[in-house]
């Protein structure tokens, strides 16, 4: 091949395209931050996609948060870059009140991410569901549970309603429930051994199992607190 100008240009072009075929200049985020929202070590159940946590990082020209969704079992996880983050649960999120952080003195939790990290966030829920037992059979689901009032005194809130939800998939709350049993908070004589029962209608297509959960709605609080999700046979 003649080594004229055109050919040299062509070869340079090929060389350049081959060398420029590397991927993104940036490495992907590597550090996983995960944990649960807990009370005295026990996770707090919530409804899917309803509660989220914000992570803010200083130093950027414009501020914007990384929003991390809290899963039904109270856990959260996010893949992040190394750095100093400020974690905050936005006001009015979650069936709980926040605890002031020792270091910052307010509800901002400083997170110094130098490697993958597990961090549980302690909060104070209004109530905790204890000793939940959910069972099913002959197209019925029944549940018994106790409620433990955690916040008493000036900030205490009443129970608006307790509910038993049964859904076809493991995403269980009032949006997906095919059989719901509610009882008003005013009807509860005492908070221990509350029993709820519901008949489950026919499932099309046939399904001999379902997922059930107990939910508590607290007056004046938009997010409900939930028990664990239990798979029951029908």
């Amino acid at each position, binding site marked *: 091949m003649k080594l004229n100008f055109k050919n040299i240009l062509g070869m340079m072009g090929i060389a350049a395209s081959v060398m420029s075929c590397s991927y993104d200049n940036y490495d992907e985020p590597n550090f996983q931050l995960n944990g649960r929202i807990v009370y005295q070590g026990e996770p707090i159940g919530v409804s899917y*996609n309803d509660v989220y946590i914000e992570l803010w990082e200083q130093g950027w020209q*414009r*501020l*914007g948060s990384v929003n991390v969704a809290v899963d039904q079992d109270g856990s959260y996880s996010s893949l992040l870059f190394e750095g100093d983050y400020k974690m905050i649960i*936005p*006001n*009015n999120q979650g069936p709980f009140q926040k605890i002031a952080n020792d270091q910052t003195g307010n509800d901002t939790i400083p997170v110094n991410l130098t490697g993958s990290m597990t961090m549980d966030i302690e909060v104070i829920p209004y109530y905790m569901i204890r000793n939940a037992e959910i069972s099913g059979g002959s197209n019925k689901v029944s549940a018994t549970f106790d409620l433990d009032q955690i916040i008493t005194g000036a900030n205490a809130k009443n129970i608006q309603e307790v509910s038993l939800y049964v859904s076809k998939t493991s995403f269980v709350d*009032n*949006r997906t*429930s095919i059989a*719901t049993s509610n009882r008003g908070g005013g009807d509860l004589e005492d908070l221990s051994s509350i029993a709820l029962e519901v008949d489950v209608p026919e499932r099309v297509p046939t399904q001999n199992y379902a997922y059930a959960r107990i939910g508590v709605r607290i007056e*004046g*609080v*938009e997010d409900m607190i939930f028990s664990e999700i239990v798979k029951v046979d029908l």
Partner: protein
Amino acid sequence: MKNLKYIYLVIFLAFAGCNDDKFLDREPTDILGEDQVWANEDLVFSVLADLYNRLPDYQGLENWWEYANFDEAFGSNAGDYWRHQNQEYGYDNWEMWDYTYIRDLNLFIEKCEGATEISEESRTRFLAEARFIRAMVYFEHVKRMGGVPLILEPLEYDNSGDPSYLQYPRAKEHEVYDFVIAEMEAIKENLPNGGTKSRATKGAALALTSRAALYAGSIANYGQLTPEVSLPGGEVGIPASMADGYYATSLEASEEVMALGTYELYNQDPDKSENFTNIFLNKSSNNEVILAKDFLVQGRTHGFTIETIPRSLREENTSGGKINPSLNLVQSYELLDNTFAELPTKDASGNPIYYDDPMDIFEGRDPRLLGTVIVPGSTFRGKEVDIWAGYKLEDGSVITSGQLGGQATLPGSNSPVQVVGFDGPIDQLEWSAQNGFYLRKYVDTSVGSGQRGTGSSVWLIRFRYSEILLNAAEAAFELGELEKAADYMNQVRRRAGFPIDLTPGEIDFDRIVHERKVELAFENHILWDKKRWRLAHRIWNGVTTNLTNNPGDALAVSTRVFGLKPYKYYEPGSPNNGKWIYEEFVPAPVFNAHRFRLGNYYSQITDDVRNNNPKIVRNPNQ
């Protein structure tokens, strides 16, 4: 040597060309300078016309798909099925932060005040109109966002490098309402009393006060039900103590409109359903309309009729029938004895009721039903619509087709016949009465309005006299003046065609909510009304339930749109052969229940806005 000649030529030309300074100082021929505009009344009017044109409508004839967001209608258009499939409304839905528009209004007002070259009369009127538009825009903002920064003059950046002096905090929610009310009081005498329906008038200013004060009063009053929907600085939420003051202001403004004598309820047609439809279509002798966005054939038209005309009667070869009013709305129209009832599809033992004529099931109801909705068996432009879902056999099976007007052979006969209407309903088939109904309100009856070349000139009514009466009824009710409330509400109901008036004792919150729902359906009131009563999160609560049995109940949960399928009964030899039966159903694309969260009451302020101005406080519950 050759090149030197060229050099000489170039130098010569350079000197020759650069002689005339004026050559470089030409006036642009495609832009009007400010001095030119402010010296000429017609030009000023054209700037004002543009400002009018930019008034936003959350739901309207030019963005009709928004009508399908709640429980009034099913969007029979595949591109809009998602509105019935979301589990929740985004926090940024219906948000607005249009300070570009506000700046343009402020600039107009500033320049208009100093415009000495147009007549005093015009200047005063233009100024009042611009202040009206600006108040409307702030009202649109506060409805959606709560308090916003109240900027009343055009701001200039001094290029000093520090823009923080331009950062204003949000005003309190009630301060924006107070501004709107005060502005209207200040300018109302500078506006003509009637004479135009597409420009601001004294009636329009009072109508805005009537509506804005009512909204503020409701938020103060019903906001007590949702204390979490508030901000400590007052940007969201109005103190309950201010409620009565706002209700009184609203009532006063409404009564002032009534006293003007310029407006009255449209009541020209003996057929009350037709009469109701014609409020929206009759532009010539209509004193009910106070302010509208007007259109003109061969001037400026819109395509609303092209999109919503019954499919079988369409004038273009495609589309039509995209807005199907829901059964939720249809069954809300009460019986003529002022009681509420679902549509009688089944008798007490659960057997279907057989009707001779398809319209019989809708008999004896509020004439506004047939004036708002095209039901099976009714006519449009003099021709009958063809809404039926198929043949129902004795064993309950259905013979139908997947195509509009499709044919099949019925058992016991040899040749195929039509087995489904040319208007549907057919499952998943868009652009037809997929849920069994078509919209009638606002759909143009004039020939050609369904054609792309012509379009429709039906106006978008922003304020009408009937709303003033309903505003007055509500304000009077909230102030405890039940006699007045009944009087005003009965005027609307009599015009609608009800023979029996309501007694003052019968006026309660359910009645107020219900009357607005059926009178003002598809007029961009539903979201704002449900928000200000704090009903939105209770009736659109995310729970999948059956259609309510109690259509008159303001708290009835209504999270999915339902439809009604008409069938022809086929059983040769039976006395019911050929009669009509109806079944309630949920259209197939509707598979999630609407969920309105507390964070939807006041829309999200974007990160961008808050980055530019750190003094802006976020809206709550998001």
